[in-house]
């Protein structure tokens, strides 16, 4: 034990040099920017920085790299809350409740909450790393594919709790997410599933285009329809930020539980921040008494993911350090840095110096904690300025947000076709939002699908049916049943209490009386049914290996959809969505419809312009058109913002970062040099 304590102190002493600390600050500064900007992801940036690392000593290298990695999730959350576009793929869950808070004029509170919970999460993750060090190897080695599969199933049952009131729709949405995860080459036999002969779909549908489409595009539409600011003229309550900080302590145990979810789920290879944030979000919903508030600006929905996406780093480091198994791309790059410095991950990382590298391991704990404290401190200093974003008028923000959406969608894989996906899922997301279908379950299904499928297959391939009897499987199975049935039980009890009372019309059904609304809702459910039937019909040519998972998911979901259709047709449930008019505004339906059509036309216009003229030119032209023609802004302002857009896309992303934007088709037709 004294060896441990010594190593802990030794770890701290190692980073206490001027160079090491300076490099950590530099890393933090870079990570800060990377986190805030959608389209500039942690992994890519790490790869770019790796060459500089070669010349540093191990501790310096990790001060730099970990400092950078540790802060991207925190600053990514800021973008998610303020403009509704996830700053990082790992900060998408924060949008769901964080952005509605900003729209309610509570941006300060949301930011205070997310920063404080991020700090708690990061420290928890670091402590988890420190305390897991002695026990982690035997623990993880007892886990095989069957247990990993069961953990994925456990995660999927969280879907039930994500659906809030509308249980059936939540199940359907989650099931559709799992089915969407099967798009691409099937991992076991290489057969194409639902790829429409498009090579870009071979790797499946990326999480980033779906999240941007589902959450950011509907926000853009709202902003354009309202023609106001994000905060809609509502003024921040005094002391909002401190209120958010206090929220973290009000919901202390939930924040700790979400941190634990982040840290311990991330120990599993293949699970990173993109997944843990949603698991934590689901848990936040699950553990709340008042699920109705979620999606509309519940602070718990911000605290959970905020804590989890930060504690994930500590968890991923556990697997990387103890086994040399990188749990994510970021970890793979860190592993590369280990090897550059001749540090081989494995048991040695847990033995005190000079035989091992325990001191180095503990220095990671310190770096994570210290860099997060610095970041959160910095953010608090600038919060007032940051919050002002929500008070800028929408017409100025729109071009910026649309550009960030397209940039973020493109830069994940540098694939033009992902822009098409953003458009498609943007349209779908908007419809889901209007018709009150829950969107988070679909995303959770999408992120857990591949893990569940490959581990299910590996279990069967390896053990036949015998894996079902493994003790670990049984234990997690029981946990899953309890977790899955508990919400059902709660609902049943709640309904029993309501019996005898006059039925209280819920928010949706008050607006849903109109026949036109009724038709749209049912029509959409029927559309889902048709899509599902088509997907199952397509799957008839899959072999057993490729078909197992789609069938196992598809047929139950088909049952749910049919039930849902029947319930809607017979009027057992409300099928109507929220009113078309935007909440809290008194615009007439005509105006709303016209503006909605208008903004969709603009978004499509961006796409066409990018296709014709290439990314930076297309976006620049559209920015100008949207400012001058769309919003009738003054010339100087329009020109300045247009020039900034150009400098940002062409200069920063194109020239400096070498994001490989494709050439526009016009320049291909005219055979111009590769310039745009």
């Amino acid at each position, binding site marked *: 034990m004294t060896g441990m304590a010594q190593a802990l102190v030794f770890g701290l002493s190692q980073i206490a040099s001027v160079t090491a600390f300076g490099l950590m600050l530099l890393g933090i500064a870079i990570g800060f920017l990377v986190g805030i900007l959608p389209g500039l992801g942690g992994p*890519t940036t790490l790869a770019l920085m790796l060459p500089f690392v070669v010349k540093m000593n191990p501790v310096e290298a990790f001060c730099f790299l970990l400092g950078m990695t540790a802060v991207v999730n925190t600053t990514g959350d800021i973008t998610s809350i303020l403009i509704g576009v996830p700053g990082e793929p790992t900060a998408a869950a924060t949008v769901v409740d964080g952005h509605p808070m900003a729209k309610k004029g509570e941006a300060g509170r949301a930011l205070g909450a997310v920063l404080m919970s991020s700090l708690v999460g990061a420290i928890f993750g670091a402590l988890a790393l420190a305390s897991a060090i002695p026990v982690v190897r035997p623990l993880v*080695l*007892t886990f095989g594919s069957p247990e990993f599969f069961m953990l994925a199933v456990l995660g999927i049952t969280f879907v039930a709790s994500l659906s809030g009131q509308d249980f059936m729709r939540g199940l359907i949405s989650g099931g559709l997410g799992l089915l969407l995860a099967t798009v691409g080459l099937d991992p076991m036999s290489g057969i194409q599933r639902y790829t429409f002969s498009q*090579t870009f779909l071979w790797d499946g549908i990326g999480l980033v285009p779906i999240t941007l489409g589902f959450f950011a595009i509907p926000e853009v539409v709202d902003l354009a329809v309202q023609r106001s600011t994000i905060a809609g003229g509502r003024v921040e309550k005094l002391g909002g930020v401190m209120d958010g900080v206090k929220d973290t302590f009000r919901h202390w145990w939930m924040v700790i539980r979400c941190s634990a979810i982040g840290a311990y789920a991330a120990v599993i290879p293949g699970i990173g921040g993109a997944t843990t944030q949603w698991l934590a979000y689901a848990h936040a919903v699950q553990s709340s008494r008042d699920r109705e508030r979620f999606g509309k600006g519940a602070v718990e929905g911000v605290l959970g993911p905020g804590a989890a996406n930060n504690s994930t780093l500590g968890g991923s480091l556990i697997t990387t350090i103890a086994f040399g198994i990188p749990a994510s*791309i970021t970890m793979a790059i860190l592993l590369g840095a280990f090897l*550059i410095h001749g540090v081989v991950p494995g048991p040695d990382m847990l033995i005190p110096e000079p035989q091992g590298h325990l001191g180095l391991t503990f220095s990671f704990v310190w770096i994570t904690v210290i860099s997060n404290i610095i970041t959160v401190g910095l953010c608090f200093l600038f919060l007032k300025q940051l919050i002002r974003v929500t008070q800028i008028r929408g017409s100025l923000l729109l071009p910026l947000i649309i550009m960030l959406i397209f940039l973020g969608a493109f830069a994940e894989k540098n694939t033009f076709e992902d822009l098409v996906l953003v458009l498609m899922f943007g349209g779908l997301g908007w419809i889901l939002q209007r018709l009150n279908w829950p969107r988070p379950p679909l995303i959770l299904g999408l992120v857990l699908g591949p893990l569940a499928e490959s581990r299910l297959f590996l279990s069967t391939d*390896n053990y036949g049916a015998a894996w079902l009897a493994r003790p670990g499987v049984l234990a997690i199975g029981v946990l899953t049943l309890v977790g899955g049935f508990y919400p059902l039980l709660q609902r049943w009890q709640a309904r029993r209490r309501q019996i005898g009372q006059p039925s209280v019309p819920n928010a949706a059904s008050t607006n849903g009386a109109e026949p036109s609304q009724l038709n749209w809702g049912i029509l959409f459910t029927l559309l889902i049914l048709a899509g599902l039937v088509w997907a199952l019909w397509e799957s008839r040519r899959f072999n057993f290996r490729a078909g197992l998972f789609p069938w196992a998911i598809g047929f139950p979901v088909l049952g749910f959809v049919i039930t849902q259709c029947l319930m809607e047709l017979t009027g057992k449930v409300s099928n109507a969505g929220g009113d078309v008019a935007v909440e809290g505004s008194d615009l007439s339906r005509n105006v709303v419809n016209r503006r909605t059509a208008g903004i969709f036309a603009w978004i499509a216009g961006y796409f066409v312009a990018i296709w014709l003229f290439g990314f930076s030119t297309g976006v620049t032209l559209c920015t100008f058109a949207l400012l001058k023609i769309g919003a009738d802004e003054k010339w100087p302002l329009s020109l300045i913002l247009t020039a900034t857009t150009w400098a940002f896309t062409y200069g920063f992303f194109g020239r400096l970062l070498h*994001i490989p934007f494709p050439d526009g088709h016009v320049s291909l037709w005219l055979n111009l040099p590769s310039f745009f």
Partner: protein
Amino acid sequence: MHKTLVSIAAVLVGVTSFPGIALGAAPFFEGKVIRIIVGLPAGGGYDAYARLIARHMPKHIPGNPTIIVENMTGAGSLISANHLFRVAKPDGLTIGHFIGNLFFNQLMKQQGVEFDAQKFEFIGASAKEEAVFAFSKKSGITSLEKWMASKTPVKMAGQAPGAAPDNAIRIAKTALGLPIQLVSGYKGTSEQRLAVESGEVAGTSYAWASMRATWRKSLESGDVVAVLQAVPKPFADLPKVPLAMSLARTEEARLLIDVGLHKSGEFSRPFALPPGTPQERVQVLVKAFQDTLRDKEFLEEADKARLDIDLVTGEELKKAVAGLFSLEPVVVAKLQEVLFR
């Protein structure tokens, strides 16, 4: 006056277009930006090689251009290979780096291939993909004899049909008749290693260059043992481990090992240019690539990053690929049956 100008111009034209003189190419690359398009994500092995080469190669190219690395990921680098063939301009400024095993996909007419491997201009390869079969000590398979004597099929971790580990394991099973149950579906070598260490499978197979770096501790301690190597000559650090070829009993087995394991190892990590790139630019890059891979500073840095360097010249690469496409249809059919069935 006029005549003098004309004659000066004529001399200039003559000099710069004279074949064999570097002047013709030097001004071309000067001030230019060469892009290496890596078909796999940032942070992986292919990416690491490309970035290392991008840092050191400019000084070996006349005109010292800038070299940058871009990642165009998807479909196991097939998207980038198609892009290099169909879209990239053949001006010597775009270099592709993708998984060479894709050439098998073309040969066996798998879906999605939109390139013709033999029309690429090859610059060279920086490493060979040479498989080693390794098992955990606790599996009991600590030597080839014990492996051959195993009564039950020995579980080995693979990734997916067509992936290098699966190819190696399938060929070993068919050509050498070793008792193997391939458990395929692990995502990457790190998951394969975890499966071996946790005892879910007995062993696995992937490139030794990567294995000896990432699994060093377990190999040194003897917890993991290399049992078989699929190379023409033993690795210097594995002098006593038997060669796959030495176990082959039939002509067919020898052919499968030669084509499926040895030859494919040579073209598994190619650097290539789009078809139709001007020959003098190709030659400049081929030479610069060789010079880079022999550069002392480069080798030091590669050593530090634990990236094995094993030069395959542009010429050798071209030959290996041509060899693949001159195989008898019967052999191709057999390979297809073994690898993709």
